[in-house]
């Protein structure tokens, strides 16, 4: 632990990693609370896995066709927003079983990503960092992008907090009171998609859903209102990413996996110790 803090002073990559974790925690607390109370964890998982498709396509275009502007992060944003919109639309419009639809997108998103990445020269490392995250590779520019998206998410959530809460609690009633419920549902999915993209850089696609939902789920056991639940979830997320990072540094473990294990342990502990 002590070595981590010494290293933190010396190495800017660790400072970036720490800052990224703290920034992402803000969105995580807010959006995670929506996802948990509205019970769309599985939908968020589907969106996360579609992100691989977007990142794979973008990386392929960059390397093979020289589209320098098409960064994996941009591909991730497009894929996440697209998946959120399509899955949400099917959920509202079609009378399909939504979990089946999500599964289809979940698998197809991954498959598209794997196909494109396998055709991209030198793919091995990319694939690993997309799937499992690499918080130590966060650059200063990444931090700016993360901060920008963070600001967008927090501002939207603050301005429309009452609409989001109403749509999560009782969508039909909100609609009867003149709230454009589908609009706020889609907006909530869009915020979820952006948050997923932010978190992918830290813990990777496969584990993002844990870090998105478990801090909110833990907070939900102690808080009886949405606002405090969001605040506590954000604090928990910040503590968990920081401690995961610190614990993984000395033994040189993958930071993402350490953060997830830690989060899971805390969650299971609260389930066992504090029965509702």
């Amino acid at each position: 632990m002590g070595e981590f803090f010494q290293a933190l002073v010396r190495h800017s990559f660790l400072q970036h990693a720490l800052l990224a974790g703290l920034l992402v925690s803000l969105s995580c607390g807010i959006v995670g609370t929506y996802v948990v109370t509205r019970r769309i964890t599985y939908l968020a998982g589907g969106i996360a896995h579609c992100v691989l498709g977007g990142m794979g396509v973008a990386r392929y275009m960059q390397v093979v066709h020289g589209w320098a502007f098409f960064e994996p992060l941009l591909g991730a944003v497009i894929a996440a927003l697209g998946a959120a919109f399509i899955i949400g639309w099917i959920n509202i419009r079609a009378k399909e079983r939504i979990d089946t639809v999500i599964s289809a997108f979940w698998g197809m998103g991954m498959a598209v990503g794997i196909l494109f990445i396998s055709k991209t020269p030198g793919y091995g490392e990319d694939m690993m960092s997309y799937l499992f995250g690499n918080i130590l590779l966060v650059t200063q520019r990444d931090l700016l992008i993360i901060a920008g998206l963070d600001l967008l998410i927090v501002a939207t959530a603050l301005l429309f907090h009452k609409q989001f809460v109403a749509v999560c609690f009782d969508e039909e009633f909100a609609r009867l009171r003149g709230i454009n419920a589908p609009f706020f549902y889609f907006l909530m999915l869009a915020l979820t998609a952006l948050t997923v993209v932010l978190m992918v850089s830290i813990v990777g696609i496969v584990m993002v859903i844990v870090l998105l939902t478990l801090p909110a789920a833990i907070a939900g056991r102690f808080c009886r209102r949405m606002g405090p639940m969001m605040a506590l979830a954000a604090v928990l997320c910040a503590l968990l990413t920081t401690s995961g990072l610190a614990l993984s540094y000395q033994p040189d473990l993958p930071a993402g996996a350490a953060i997830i294990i830690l989060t899971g342990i805390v969650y299971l502990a609260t389930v066992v110790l504090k029965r509702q």
Partner: protein
Amino acid sequence: MKPPIHIENLDFSYGNISVLEQVNLSISDKEFVCMVGPNGGGKTTLLKLLLGLLEPQAGTVSVFGENPTAGRKWIGYLPQHAHLDSKFPVTALDAVLMGRLGKTRGIGPYTRIDRAMACDMLNRVGLEKLAKRPLATLSGGQRQRVLIARALVSEPRLLLLDEPTSSLDDYVERELYDLLLELNEELTVVVVTHDIGFVSSYVDKVVCVNRQVRIHPTSEIDENIIHDMYGEHVHMVRHDQEHGHG
């Protein structure tokens, strides 16, 4: 003044399954009406048509002279409470405040006026001391009254309640109807319910919904209504009798 509810020659079906046929119904201002009928008879469908959540295949529905989508701003609606997540993290006051949506400003938190009105309504339903309590810790009857306060805080002129007493014991149910009777001095009240026997002492009019709609003034409450409520075979018995006499 335009009547709170006016329905003419309405037909509604889900696919080719007919749910409501040739419905005509008019409810005047400040009436206290009870809607009864068997499960699957079309009560909830009729409410959803009034709220503009469903469109009829034929006929017209008007709410205070407007189409339901426009008129529903005047309706305070209490859904069947089973469909809400009982663990959702809101307090009683938070839940009531949601009734101010559509009346309050679009951006930012609820205003001081919204809060004052919500507290007033909680007071009205006798829950002022529980305003800060989480909804999850309230009893079924208390939760039902919170949702009634939520319906009232939007300043409705018509109150639609879908089976408000389904999970309540007799004492709480009587209290609830006393509250509705008091509210009825200012607004029109329509209650969907199963237990006609008890309600009949409160209401002006009983509307039986079983594919068709029949209206009975309370003075007529007798086994005819029970017959209307409980299905085809009862009608058949009556037709047979008419046959025999004719």
